[in-house]
């Protein structure tokens, strides 16, 4: 199955571990990724400044994806998923807006139809690839692992859009973890926001959001926190030290993408999954899987 893929800004310019792991696991599941040419930012970063420009950017990327003639488009980033699904929604009922956007797109010989179906990594795996196929590819079941999941706000809400999972009680990532043999741990702070969108205006508050969540996950005794959004990963993994310093706690909890976890269960080399790029102590987790008994300490 061929699926178009749009990576956005954050993944291909700094969150390489997400891109590497998605590229590594998809072929094993029978998904051939088709990269898009000439795409740009999804629009999320300019929503606060100029909403019409944000909608234009989202529609432009969708129009480029439609040109491939493929049925499905994968958006691994939560921010891109929200921006593109929001634009799709506005353009589905506002004919005038659609006309305006298409007049602007003509400059580049593009046209937005609204024909391509969008997916996030989580629902693509859960609803399109499905359980049987995923279970089939597991070579090293992750039995005994107790994991906390973090979905990220922008794929769950608002339910006026086509969301990836149920807004108040999402289950798909929990299921996906179960299919690998691990346990998803229920915890009350599961839906708490990472705070990344406050980084530009109130960094200390942003760090506190992340810190409090990491602290509870650590205190509940999770072996790792599993995420699916590059912005959340940057808060929880890349900035874990500063986040801990902000709330005055010693944080030492492995954080990784679901696609990296899936790759581990498939038995893919950890460097191919970009796990050497995670800043949080993922070696602790790797040792627990029993796969990498000699995993060197950082």
């Amino acid at each position, binding site marked *: 199955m061929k699926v178009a893929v749009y990576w956005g800004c954050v993944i291909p310019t700094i969150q390489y571990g997400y891109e590497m792991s998605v590229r590594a696991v998809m072929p094993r599941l029978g998904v051939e990724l088709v990269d898009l040419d000439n795409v740009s930012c999804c629009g999320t970063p300019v929503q606060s400044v100029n*909403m*019409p420009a944000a909608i234009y950017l989202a529609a432009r990327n969708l129009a480029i994806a439609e040109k491939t003639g493929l049925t499905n488009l994968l958006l691994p980033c939560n921010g891109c998923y929200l921006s593109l699904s929001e634009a799709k929604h506005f353009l589905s009922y506002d004919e005038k807006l659609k006309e305006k956007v298409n007049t602007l797109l003509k400059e*580049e010989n593009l046209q937005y139809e609204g024909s391509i179906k969008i997916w996030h990594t989580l629902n693509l795996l859960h609803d399109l690839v499905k359980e049987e196929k995923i279970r089939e590819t597991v070579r090293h079941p992750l039995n005994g692992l107790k994991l906390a999941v973090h979905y990220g706000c922008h794929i769950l809400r608002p339910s006026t859009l086509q969301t990836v999972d149920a*807004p108040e009680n999402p289950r798909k990532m929990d299921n996906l973890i179960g299919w690998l043999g691990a346990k998803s741990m229920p915890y009350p702070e599961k839906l708490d926001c990472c705070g990344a969108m406050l980084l530009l*205006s*109130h960094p200390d508050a942003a760090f506190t959001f992340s810190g409090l969540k990491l602290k509870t996950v650590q205190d509940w005794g999770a072996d790792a926190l599993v995420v699916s959004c590059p912005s959340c990963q940057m808060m929880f993994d890349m*900035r874990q030290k500063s986040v801990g310093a902000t709330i005055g706690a010693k944080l030492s909890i492995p954080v990784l993408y679901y696609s990296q976890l899936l790759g581990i269960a498939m038995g893919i080399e950890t460097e191919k999954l*970009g796990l050497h790029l995670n800043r949080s102590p993922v*070696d602790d987790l790797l040792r627990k899987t029993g796969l990498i008994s000699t995993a060197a300490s950082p």
Partner: protein
Amino acid sequence: MPIKARATIPISMSITDLTTTKKPDTALRLKIIAKIGEQKPYNCFQCIRCTSGCPSMKMLELKPHEIVNLARLGFIEELLTSGILWTCATCLKCKERCPQAVAPVDLIFALRNLAVEKEVKVPESFLLSLSAILENGFIQKPQNTVTRKLERVNREKLGLPKFREPDEKFKAAFFKVLEQSQEE
């Protein structure tokens, strides 16, 4: 850019006595209502459900129900200059949970857009992303990074395909989009 070095905006609004000391602005009120989509602030019945689940309320004293109330009364200037608009974490819980389908977060974004239009108190970093996109098509170019063992790596070293920026035509088209949105 180190995060800590970025300027933060002080929150300097005392919302409660606005209604007794200031005059509402009807024209701006209509302008802001036109900017938001289906969810209209006049349907709000001040049940405070939005604020009770707002993570920024605990941390930064953001009260989405008050924003909705002030906007529908027409105290737009005051909202624009207060700095409070930039405390929203965009978690979308208020939009999801409002029983009246109001969407305070959409209103906050419309107000931010208006603050930019009127050139009042916008955190500079928000404007920087716009110029970066005009320049590169994305908010940044691929960055060098290090592994946990402190090895320097980039896309090529990691075996990732070459990163492609959009061509010159995109920049011209996007510039036109920005020009046009200013005229409206």
